[in-house]
């Protein structure tokens, strides 16, 4: 495989294309990728174990912090499982508010993705535009829940905040603005030559491969797989709402862009429906502190794809086991397939196209450093030496630089 003339370049753990630490070791022949070696796990924080040692209410806030972008997804998914075990009948109004926040989160996540995708292909203007518009939905979320991320709106048995008529008016107004802007982006995606050139035919994932590799979310839907948990296994208020599952048959990055853009339009539709049909009533029921013995699997369509939580209770106020299967873990395995025989230039956008969220995926720094307080801060020199060793093992030698740095220190 490895011939002379091949170049191995490390993309990550730290690299401008990646927003989170993960490592892609790429072997290049000219501009073509001949092999790719993915290593993830840098963000492991031991959340699953930590959940077992905390009460359900504490877990809720811990789980919400698995990821900053899809925080509501994780917390809703967890709450749904706990409510199922406890047999709680959640009030309708609470379900509608959860749906509302979920869709607002999807809007902000998809707009964020569009900007990141623009940046990955060197189109910074798109990044600036979409992130400007994303502020609108961020403001709405802040107004509604008090936070821009990690909303903390869920609680076991309902939601913590009600929405007022003023909120409704503001949301409806924001949706009009966003819909108009999104139409403009759809236009840009359809007409802008360089975007089409950079995105179409890149990162191909055929229908069969998407099934075999168990891709989820927009990645799968852009390959023609009509899977959407909101539709297949309705939760919250999705069973009563009217929306389409967007699919595309292009199977490439362009298809994934189109799917996300059209999903934005669907989300605006859902949000409008939720606001007009919002039932009256309480927003929470009282939940017991101790959850009876049982187990439940909860599914949720996060902006990146299907999120699955498994919760097992043992009759105390702490869960026995919490398992989180975030969407990126399902999609990351398709990435090396998508990059076969592609150009180096396609690498960032193909990785970005699954909308990876590695902090979700890893969920868990080494606990060893956490509990042993003395070791909590690693000296800079140690970290430096460790990183050089790490790279050496993978065939990249920075020792030249190392010698230079040591010299500086001696001086």
């Amino acid at each position: 495989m490895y011939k002379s003339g091949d170049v191995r370049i490390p993309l990550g753990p730290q690299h401008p294309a990646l927003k989170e630490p993960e490592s892609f070791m790429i072997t290049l022949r000219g501009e073509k990728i001949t092999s790719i070696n993915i290593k993830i796990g840098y963000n492991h924080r031991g959340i699953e174990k930590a959940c077992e040692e905390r009460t359900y209410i504490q877990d809720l806030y811990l789980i919400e912090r698995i990821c900053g972008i899809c925080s509501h997804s994780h917390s809703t998914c967890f709450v749904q499982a706990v409510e199922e075990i406890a047999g709680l009948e959640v009030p309708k109004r609470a379900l509608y508010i959860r749906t509302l926040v979920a869709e607002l989160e999807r809007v902000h996540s998809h707009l964020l993705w569009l900007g990141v995708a623009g940046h990955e292909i060197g189109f910074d203007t798109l990044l600036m535009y979409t992130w400007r518009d994303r502020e609108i939905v961020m403001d709405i979320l802040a107004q509604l829940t008090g936070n821009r991320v990690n909303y903390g709106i869920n609680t076991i048995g309902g939601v913590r905040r009600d929405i007022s008529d003023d909120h409704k008016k503001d949301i409806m107004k924001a949706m009009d603005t966003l819909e108009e802007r999104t139409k403009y982006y759809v236009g840009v995606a359809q007409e802008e030559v360089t975007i089409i050139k950079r995105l179409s035919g890149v990162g191909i994932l055929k229908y069969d491969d998407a099934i075999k590799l168990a891709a989820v979310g927009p990645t799968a839907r852009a390959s023609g797989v009509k899977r959407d948990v909101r539709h297949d296994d309705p939760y919250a208020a999705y069973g009563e709402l009217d929306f389409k599952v967007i699919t595309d048959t292009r199977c490439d990055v362009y298809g994934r862009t189109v799917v996300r853009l059209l999903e934005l339009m669907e989300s605006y539709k859902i949000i409008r429906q939720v606001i007009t049909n919002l039932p009256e009533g309480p927003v929470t029921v009282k939940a017991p502190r101790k959850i009876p013995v049982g187990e439940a699997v909860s599914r949720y369509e996060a902006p990146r794809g299907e999120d699955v939580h498994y919760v097992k209770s043992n009759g105390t106020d702490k869960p026995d086991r919490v398992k989180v299967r975030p969407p990126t873990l399902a999609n990351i395995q398709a990435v090396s397939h998508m990059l076969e025989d592609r150009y180096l230039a396609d690498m960032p956008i193909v990785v970005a196209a699954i909308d990876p969220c590695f902090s979700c995926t890893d969920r868990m720094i080494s606990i060893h450093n956490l509990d042993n307080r003395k070791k909590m801060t690693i000296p800079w020199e140690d970290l430096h030496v460790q990183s050089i060793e790490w790279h050496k093992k993978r065939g990249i030698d920075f020792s030249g630089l190392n010698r230079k740095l040591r010299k500086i220190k001696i001086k």
Partner: protein
Amino acid sequence: MSLEENIKNELEEKFPFLASAIVIKRQRRIFVDIPQENFAEVFSYLIMKMQFSILVAITGLDEGNNMFGVMYHLCRETGQMCIARIHIPRENPLIKTVTSFFPSAEAYEREMVDLLGIHVEGLAPGHRYPLPDNWPVGEFPLRKEWKLEARHDIKENPHV
């Protein structure tokens, strides 16, 4: 008869030993406890004949009583989820890989190897996930006896 009951009946008919092992928890959620020796045939039947063609996740857990549980969350395209579960003894935690059915199972299996210390037969060599490379040997965080308290005796794995 609901779709879930149809599935239950079909399974019971085909595999009589599953008679009392199938529980319908709610709409679209079926839990099946499979004896370890029969796992391969039931599992392939579920995938090949009963359209449970999507592997959503694999969960490993410490059930106490010196047993580990491994749950395969299988899904139909129409939304039904079948949770196929096996129980394996802690003394000899050995399961076979399902990567031949689902290449995507690799990450989930590695997670079980790292966090629970379950051996997966047939798993191709590769990076460990999700624990760091210098994680000490024989420490499995998701086992019940493993506590988050301060431990000064842990040594980094020197053989990496």
